[in-house]
């Protein structure tokens, strides 16, 4: 569907994107992950034809950028970062303008599409409002409706959830997942859990280079499981609890953490780094604590796989 080869973009002396090559298949949801300033937005801007690449080729379907730029632009629905829209227009007028310029000439068809989009993006109550008066989340939704106007085969979303409240983030993610069943979606984010939850494939970008590019599951398996256990106890003292836990296995690392509630003691327990097995110590901990008169308030296991990969790959000087 999308083929990118040796894509490079220089801004004067600064190389924002450095020799990126990747292929994106039809129906894939690709997450572009990276710290701020890694070159995510620049890459997306080149894919959508806003920036001209300094070198390298972009091929989308059978069209070549920049030769068939207009054809490509009509294939892609694009939501730029923070959805820059025309502030003085009404939402309805704006959508109508976009629909016309994207070639939906028939009035009936336009109207039907507006109804579908307003259902999907929840716009029905704001159609008659000026865009300038909308909150960030609502603007983002209008931007999303803009991107999906012609039901494009490829959707490119630049940080679609940045600056939104948790409810709105969940809504946007649902929308991405729903439409992602049939469409090719590329979206950028710096929120790891988001990429993990929505993407089939993740590409991590740092300093303009792709440092990892694989399916979400493969990426997670590629590092040693770095899981840890959160334990909170009631009625125990720190030191005695620590000694008791040490007696399960001397290789356990036990770290004090801020108690989740007043009157508790909390620990973060990790398996020592040199151990290769990923044994689950939760049952051992439970059995040990059962012997005492302490009460377990919290005993949860968390995995940190993606965080660890991300930190390793994007650390300063890496």
């Amino acid at each position, binding site marked *: 569907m999308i083929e990118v080869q040796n894509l490079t973009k220089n801004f004067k002396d600064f190389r924002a994107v450095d020799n990126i090559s990747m292929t994106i298949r039809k129906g894939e949801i690709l997450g572009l992950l990276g710290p701020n300033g890694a070159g995510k937005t620049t890459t997306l*801007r080149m894919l*959508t*034809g*806003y*920036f*001209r690449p300094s070198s390298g080729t972009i091929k989308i379907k059978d069209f070549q950028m920049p030769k068939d*730029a*207009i*054809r490509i*632009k*009509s294939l*892609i629905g*694009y939501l*730029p970062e*923070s959805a*820059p*829209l*025309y*502030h*003085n*227009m009404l939402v309805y007028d704006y959508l109508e*303008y*976009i629909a*016309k*310029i*994207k*070639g939906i000439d028939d009035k009936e068809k336009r109207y039907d599409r507006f109804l579908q989009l307003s259902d999907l993006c929840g716009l029905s109550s704001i159609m008659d409002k000026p865009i300038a008066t909308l909150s960030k989340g609502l603007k983002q939704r209008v931007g999303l409706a*803009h991107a999906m106007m012609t039901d494009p085969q490829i959707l490119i979303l630049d940080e679609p959830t940045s600056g939104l409240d948790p409810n709105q983030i969940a809504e946007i993610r649902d929308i991405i997942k729903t439409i992602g069943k049939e469409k090719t979606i590329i979206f950028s984010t710096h929120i790891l859990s988001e990429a993990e939850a929505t993407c089939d494939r993740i590409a991590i970008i740092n300093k303009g280079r792709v440092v990892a590019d694989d399916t979400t599951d493969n990426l997670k398996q590629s590092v040693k499981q770095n899981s840890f256990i959160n334990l909170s106890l009631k009625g125990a003292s720190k030191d005695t609890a620590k000694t008791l836990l040490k007696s399960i296995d001397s290789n356990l690392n036990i770290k004090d953490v801020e108690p989740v509630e007043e009157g508790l003691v909390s620990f973060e327990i990790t398996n020592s780094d040199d151990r290769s097995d990923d044994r689950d110590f939760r049952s051992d901990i439970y059995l040990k604590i059962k012997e005492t008169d302490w009460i377990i308030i919290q005993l949860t296991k968390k995995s940190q796989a993606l965080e660890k990969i991300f930190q390793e790959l994007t650390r300063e000087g890496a």
Partner: protein
Amino acid sequence: MKQIKIIAIKEFKDYFISPIAYIVISLFLIVTGWFFFSTFFIFGRADLRDFFSLLPITFSFIIPAITMRLFSEEKNIGSYETLLTLPVSFTDIALGKFFAATLFTASMLIPTISYPIFISFIGEIDSGPVIGGYMGAIFLAAAYCSIGLFASSLTRNQIVAFIIGCALCFTLTILDKLLFFMPTKIIWVIEHIGATSHFTNISKGIIDSRDILYFVSVIFIFIFSTYLVMHEKN
């Protein structure tokens, strides 16, 4: 072609959504109306010559104010990115915005049609120079709009765009009064670059292909420069 029309209509409507349009139109009518009618009854001539002779100067300040937002505003709020990722070409965008601004200046001239109508009540008015004058005014407005468009494409700051536009338009307006300072060898070229003499010819009712060619060339040069700037900044 269709895209140009859609962009032009959108930009034209935009003028009337914000108060800019009404402010600029009122300002234009007050300034031209005052300068024209304050001496009108003293001279007692039933024509619009004084009105048209003022247009190049007023236009060189009013038109950059109209065109300054065309690109600068979009670049400033970021909608330029939205615009460029729509299926439109650079030419569509530049021409669409150019036609919108020209159309707006033309609509600004519509209320002034009441002048010749009133004058025709108090004296015999020669319709030739009036029609020629309006034709010339449209050509002049179109040329200055293309200059303003170019100025706006250079920067994201509307005030800078306004000043660059004013400087360019004003230079073209007063150039034939500055011939005095020019070296004699190049006077014959400079003489033709100024806009005022070409406009005056048309507004006398003399439609000469050379004058029309002059305005068309100015429009072409500046729209093409706008295209080049867009291409270069992309």
